[in-house]
């Protein structure tokens, strides 16, 4: 190989995060000791981030099939059939560690990366969402991190011109030293024009396009697979810098080229850059690849083979073109002022061969890089059982509205407007419902069809009961889509957990994946893509587990969708999924419990997936048939919060009857699942339909034009007062 001093030892391997066993296996498969570049390639491919070595066994238990599925997990993104010959292509991805180190660039490159995953498949991205978790509001770093991440998400999405239409954000002290930044992108393609990454045709040219390669983010995949400590923070690896302008040009150039019938296979350069893209393309095609690294467009001088292969410079792609298409392709990339360089060819050898400076810098069989990647069955146990919390142990007699005002004015529930107004949610002019609703709704350009989407997870449930929490994330997303009238189709997921080598963390992962699978099966929303982010720990302390669900669904005619605002005074307000006998509610693991300063971990509300499906389907049907004209799912904060949100967003008030007996706070703030608040113009018909479907329905009260929210006879608050605390909270936090 290149030089003797380049011969690696186990010590080198260890600094790259490889274990002794893994080191031995590499030597055995190669029949010799690897050099630096080769070792770097192995360590990247075998990192948790690229190989899913701790989670693979469990990911295999997730349902991935269904008549709607065109492409399940394994490609750059998943694809589902949405009718009219179109496919929705989507995926979610984490950029947690980079965003903690450099919030702006970390978040921006997270968005850029997930967009590339989607347009690599031939889809034009039409929507972005995100799921964010920050530390406690009062933690010294939170303000800086929130500000930077939001700026970064907007900085990339706004500039490239894809609307950011939804997301979620929570605050909890367990994220003080390890925030979560998950970005989701959704695109549209013709179902018969989807591009994949398997290399084909030995001899075909391998083309590098996009931006030049620099020394940024070298070995990011390994970093993303390591725990955080104060030391890593001070090491400060060169972070990647996003360039949304070049990203936009790359997107337009790729989509233009893909329309020209020149591309055989294509893969973006994400984590582990040129390494993972070349290895994955070759491996999926069962072929080999030979690349001349001297031809790789470089931004800096004297870059080594190791650096070129492991750089995570942004806005780059690798493609295999039809042999006679090179000039067509070159012309397109020139037009968009992007680098275009044939750097190698597909081979039959099954080996990755890298040439540099007239020598061979790397020669390794591709098989072991992928097939021999370790797969662990890490020890795990049973999730702890949790005590149930009785309402009477925690509630008091304060008026409902007092409590409501406190809760709505807290970061857990306050308006996210400060965040989402920094995102362009309308560019492309097809956004029908942007941030602020239950699910976002984006029209399929030039048609009446709509794509609905939402991201959801309730980490405090997952912590209390990982199986319930994993399932609940799916159920909540399902409810959010149902609440606007859209039919859920499929999900993508982002598993954010701590160190899987700890059995209690592994238990969280296993249980929540099992729960997620159960829910996905019951609700007929198979998993088509996803991402795993482990080692989310700081100095040995894990985050609250956060398996985020991104769900996509469809509505035939966007005119039929409803929002979560009251639409007219004097209309009846109902709760669906709750009997008229209910006079208490489930407060364990609720926001209400949190706000009473009880930080015990209690059993979360039980989840009945059959009930979720029944109520969700009922609400959808009623919306589409015109029987419901506003709907809001009940989630964080319970019934009272749901009603207050509908009032604040509409400007109307409401008069709500309260139960005569029971526990009033339990009733108002309990987080029992599978419920919706709805309004209708025809109460009789709605009640009759619910009876017939065997679904509980209870009249709560009426919409009023009084600008007040009234619970019973003498507990009243003005909507303006509620709005002031609801809208004021996050701006005040961010102003410091």
């Amino acid at each position: 190989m290149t030089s003797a001093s380049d011969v690696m030892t186990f010590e080198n391997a260890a600094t790259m995060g490889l274990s002794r066993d893994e080191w031995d296996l590499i030597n055995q498969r190669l029949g010799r000791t690897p050099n630096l570049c080769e070792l770097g390639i192995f360590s990247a491919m075998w990192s948790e981030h690229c190989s899913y070595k701790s989670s693979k066994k469990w990911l295999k238990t997730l349902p991935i099939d269904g008549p709607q599925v065109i492409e399940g997990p394994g490609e750059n993104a998943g694809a589902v059939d949405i009718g009219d010959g179109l496919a929705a292509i989507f995926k979610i991805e984490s950029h947690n560690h980079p965003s903690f180190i450099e919030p702006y660039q970390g978040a921006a490159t997270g968005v850029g990366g997930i967009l590339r995953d989607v347009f690599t498949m031939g889809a034009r991205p039409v929507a972005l969402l995100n799921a964010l978790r920050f530390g406690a509001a009062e933690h010294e770093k939170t303000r800086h991190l929130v500000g930077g991440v939001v700026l970064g998400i907007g900085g990339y999405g706004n500039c490239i011109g894809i609307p950011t239409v939804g997301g979620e954000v929570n605050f909890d002290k367990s994220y003080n030293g390890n925030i979560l930044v998950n970005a989701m992108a959704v695109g549209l393609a013709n179902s018969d024009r989807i591009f994949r990454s398997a290399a084909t045709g030995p001899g075909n040219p391998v083309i590098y396009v996009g931006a030049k390669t620099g020394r940024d983010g070298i070995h990011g995949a390994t970093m993303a697979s390591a725990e955080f400590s104060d030391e890593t923070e001070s090491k400060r690896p060169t972070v990647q810098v996003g360039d949304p302008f070049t990203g936009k040009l790359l997107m337009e150039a790729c989509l233009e080229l893909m329309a020209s019938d020149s591309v055989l296979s294509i893969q973006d350069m994400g984590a582990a850059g040129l390494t993972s893209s070349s290895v994955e393309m070759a491996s999926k095609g069962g072929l080999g690849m030979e690349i001349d690294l001297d031809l790789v467009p470089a931004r800096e001088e004297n870059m080594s083979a190791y650096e070129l292969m492991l750089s995570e410079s942004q806005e780059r792609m690798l493609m295999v073109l039809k042999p006679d298409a090179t000039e067509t392709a070159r012309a397109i990339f020139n037009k968009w002022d992007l680098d275009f360089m044939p750097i190698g060819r597909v081979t039959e050898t099954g080996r990755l061969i890298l040439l540099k400076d007239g020598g061979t810098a790397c020669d390794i069989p591709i098989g072991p890089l992928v097939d021999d990647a370790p797969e662990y069955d890490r020890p795990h146990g049973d999730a702890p059982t949790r005590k149930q919390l009785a309402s009477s142990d925690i509630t008091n007699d304060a008026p409902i509205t007092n409590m409501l005002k406190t809760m709505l004015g807290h970061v857990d529930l306050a308006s996210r407007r400060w965040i989402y107004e920094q995102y362009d949610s309308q560019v492309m002019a097809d956004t029908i419902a942007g941030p602020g609703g239950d699910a976002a709704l984006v029209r399929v350009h030039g048609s009446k069809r709509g794509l609905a989407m939402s991201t959801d997870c309730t980490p405090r449930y997952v912590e209390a009961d990982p199986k319930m929490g994993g399932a609940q994330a799916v159920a909540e997303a399902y409810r959010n889509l149902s609440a606007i009238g859209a039919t859920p189709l499929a999900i993508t997921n982002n598993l954010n957990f701590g160190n899987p080598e700890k059995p209690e963390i592994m238990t969280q992962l296993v249980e929540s994946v099992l729960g997620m699978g159960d829910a996905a099966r019951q609700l007929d929303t198979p998993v088509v893509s996803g991402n795993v982010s482990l080692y989310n720990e700081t100095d040995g302390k894990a985050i609250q587990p956060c398996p985020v669900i991104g769900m996509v669904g469809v509505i035939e005619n966007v005119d039929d969708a409803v929002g979560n605002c009251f639409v007219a005074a004097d209309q009846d307000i109902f709760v669906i999924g709750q009997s008229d006998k209910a006079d208490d509610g489930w407060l364990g693991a609720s926001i209400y419990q949190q706000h009473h300063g009880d930080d015990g971990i209690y059993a979360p509300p039980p989840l009945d997936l059959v009930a979720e499906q029944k109520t969700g389907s009922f609400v959808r049907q009623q919306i589409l048939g015109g029987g419901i004209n506003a709907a809001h799912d009940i989630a964080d904060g319970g019934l009272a919060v749901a009603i207050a949100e509908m009032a604040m967003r509409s400007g109307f008030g409401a008069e709500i009857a309260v139960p005569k007996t029971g526990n009033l706070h339990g009733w108002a703030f309990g987080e029992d699942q599978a419920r919706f608040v709805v309004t209708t113009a025809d109460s009789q018909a709605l009640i009759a339909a619910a009876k017939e479907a065997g679904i509980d329905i209870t009249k709560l009260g009426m919409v009023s034009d009084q600008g007040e929210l009234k619970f019973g006879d003498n507990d009243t608050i003005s909507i303006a007062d509620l709005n002031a605390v609801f809208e004021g909270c996050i701006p005040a936090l961010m102003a410091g």
Partner: protein
Amino acid sequence: MTLSALRVAIIVFPGSNCDRDMMVAIEQLTSRRPALVWHKEASLDAADLVIIPGGFSFGDYLRCGALAGRSPIMNAVLDHAARGGAVMGICNGFQILTETGMVPGVLIRNAGLKFSCRNVGLRPCETLASPFTAGLDLGEDLTIPIAHNEGNYFADADELDRIEGNGQVAFRYAASDAGGPVNPNGASRDIAGVLSSNGRVLGMMPHPERAMSKLHGGTDGAKFLLKSLEALVS
């Protein structure tokens, strides 16, 4: 002339991202698809209206609109305007117009230092004769979305007095149902849109092409664009 005879050209820069939206909006109103003209073109076919759309031309690098303002096509646009041709710049298009001096003033960073995407109220002002304002009712505010980071209109006091005196202020921000502060970006004297001294060139920050139907949440964008297009054909 009928609306469908109106020749509209939309200039596309690398990084433009509201070009398609504007094309769809104009086609909705005129039933004729506007021409999209790439920034490297040196000339412009005869057009009754040239639109410079929103987006992030050249990534907003250096200054918003600076690099686009020096693109080859802009010489043709300047010639078109010099002949009295109508030009409308929306958002980044407005920034490009100020960079080339086609409308007075400059657009600097929002006073809140944040990108802002939301509905604003837009008050039509009394202006010199202009196809862009001729059809608007002075008493009737419009609601149209903004989405920008550099929409803070700036000119010195003398210049402001001058353009106000000439009737070159087309729109000011006004209160809207959407709430939030009236002036979303710190713009001098609440100015949201200005005209050239002959009234044939308009730059404005809000995006009418995003308020074209009930599904967008409002139709005031369509109303404004239609009035402008009608004035141009009459």
